[in-house]
C-alpha cells in the first residue's frame, strides 16, 4: 500500500487475489457486447474486464469535465454501478459500449456539477502531473504551464462545449459516437466543436492575461 499524495488515506495497490485479473479468464479479448452479456449473467471476470477496458476513459472524461480527480473517481464508481445493475438492458445494436458509458458518465458529471454550483479547486495532482524524465527542464516547465492553462480553460467552458471537446479532441471519440452520446445530430457535434475551439482560444488568452495574484488552483467550473 502507498500513501496518498494528500496524506489523508492509504491507497491499496491491490486488494486481494480474488479481486484479481480478468486476464486470467481470457475475458480481455472478448468484444464489449459479449462481456456485457456475461456481466448480466453474473460473470465477475467479465465485469472486471469491462472495468479494465473502459474505466480509464470514463475517469479521464469525468476529470476533465469536473476538474477534480476525486470527483471523477466517484463518477467512475457510479458508472460501473450502473453497468452492474443494468448490463442486461444494454443493446449493442443501438450504440457502442463506449457511447453508452460516456452517456452514463455525462449524466453523473452534469448531476454533480448542478448539485455543486460552486468553485471547484483543481486537484494539485492534476496541476502537477508528473512528466516523464526529459532532457529539457525549461521546455518541460513551459509545456506544463501551457497544459495547466489549457486544463483551466477547458474546465471554465460551458459544459455543452466542454463535453464535445473532451470527447472528440481528447478522447478520440468519433463524431458519430459523440452524437449518440449527446443525443444530437453529427452536424451539431461539428458546430459545437468549432465553437468550443474558438471559446478555448479566447479563454486561454484571458487566463494568460489574468493577474498572477489570482489563486492558481481555484477556478470556476462552468455548468
Amino acid at each position, binding site marked *: 500500500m502507498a500513501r496518498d499524495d494528500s496524506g489523508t488515506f492509504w491507497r491499496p495497490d491491490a*486488494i486481494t487475489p480474488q479481486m484479481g485479473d480478468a486476464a486470467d479468464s481470457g475475458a480481455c479479448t472478448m468484444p464489449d457486447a459479449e462481456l456485457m452479456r456475461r456481466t448480466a449473467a453474473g460473470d465477475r471476470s467479465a465485469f472486471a474486464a469491462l472495468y479494465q477496458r473502459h474505466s480509464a476513459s470514463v475517469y479521464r472524461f469525468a476529470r476533465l469535465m469536473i476538474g477534480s480527480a476525486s470527483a471523477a473517481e466517484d463518477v467512475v*464508481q457510479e458508472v460501473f454501478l450502473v453497468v452492474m445493475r443494468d448490463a442486461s438492458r444494454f443493446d449493442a445494436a443501438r450504440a457502442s459500449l463506449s457511447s453508452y458509458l460516456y452517456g452514463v458518465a455525462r449524466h453523473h458529471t452534469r448531476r454533480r456539477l448542478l448539485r455543486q454550483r460552486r468553485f471547484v479547486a483543481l486537484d494539485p495532482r492534476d496541476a502537477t502531473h508528473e512528466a516523464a524524465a526529459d532532457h529539457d527542464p525549461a521546455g518541460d516547465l513551459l509545456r506544463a504551464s501551457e497544459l495547466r492553462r*489549457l486544463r483551466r480553460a477547458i474546465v471554465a467552458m460551458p459544459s455543452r462545449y466542454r463535453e464535445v471537446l473532451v470527447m472528440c479532441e481528447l478522447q478520440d471519440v468519433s463524431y458519430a459516437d459523440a452524437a449518440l452520446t449527446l443525443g444530437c445530430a453529427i452536424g451539431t457535434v461539428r458546430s459545437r466543436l468549432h465553437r468550443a475551439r474558438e471559446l478555448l482560444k479566447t479563454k486561454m488568452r484571458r487566463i494568460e492575461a489574468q493577474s498572477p495574484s489570482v489563486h492558481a488552483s481555484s477556478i470556476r467550473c462552468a455548468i
Partner: protein
Amino acid sequence: MKPLDGHDELTATLRALRDEEAHIQPPACVRSAVLAAWDSADRGGLPRQSGEVAKAGTWRVAALAAGVALAVALTRLGGELQSAIVPPQALAAMVHLVGEPIADGEAVRVVRMRMAPAVLASLGIRSTAGELADAVDVDVIVGEDGVARAIRLGM
C-alpha cells in the same frame, strides 16, 4: 509564454494534453470499491437483471434493514458523543456484508478506500444527514478468502 493565436497551435496543445491524459488511470482503490460492490451484490445484494423482481425485493429489504441498523448505530453513537468523551476506536459503525460474522482472532485484512455515496447506498448504507456530496472514507474488512465481509465507517 507564447500566445495561442493560431489554429495549429491550439491543435498541437490539445494533442499534447491528449498524450498526457492517455497515461492517466483511476487509482486502484476505485477498482477495489467497484469490485467490492460486485462481490456484495453477488451474495444477495443488488439485482443485476431487470427481470429479477423477487431479488430486487429482497435487496430492498436487506438495504432497508442495513440502513435501519446503521441509523440505530449512528443515533446511539451520537448519544454517546453528547454524553461523554469516548475513545477514538469507538467512533465507528460496522456494517456486515456477507458470510459469517467476523470471529475474534480471525485473520482479516483492512483496506481503507473511498466510496462514492451511490456505492454505499447500493450496499444499504445511507447517511442520516441527507444526501452526501463527496466520497466517504471507509474501511473494508476482507476475509482470508478475499471476499469483502464488512464495512467499517468512521463517525
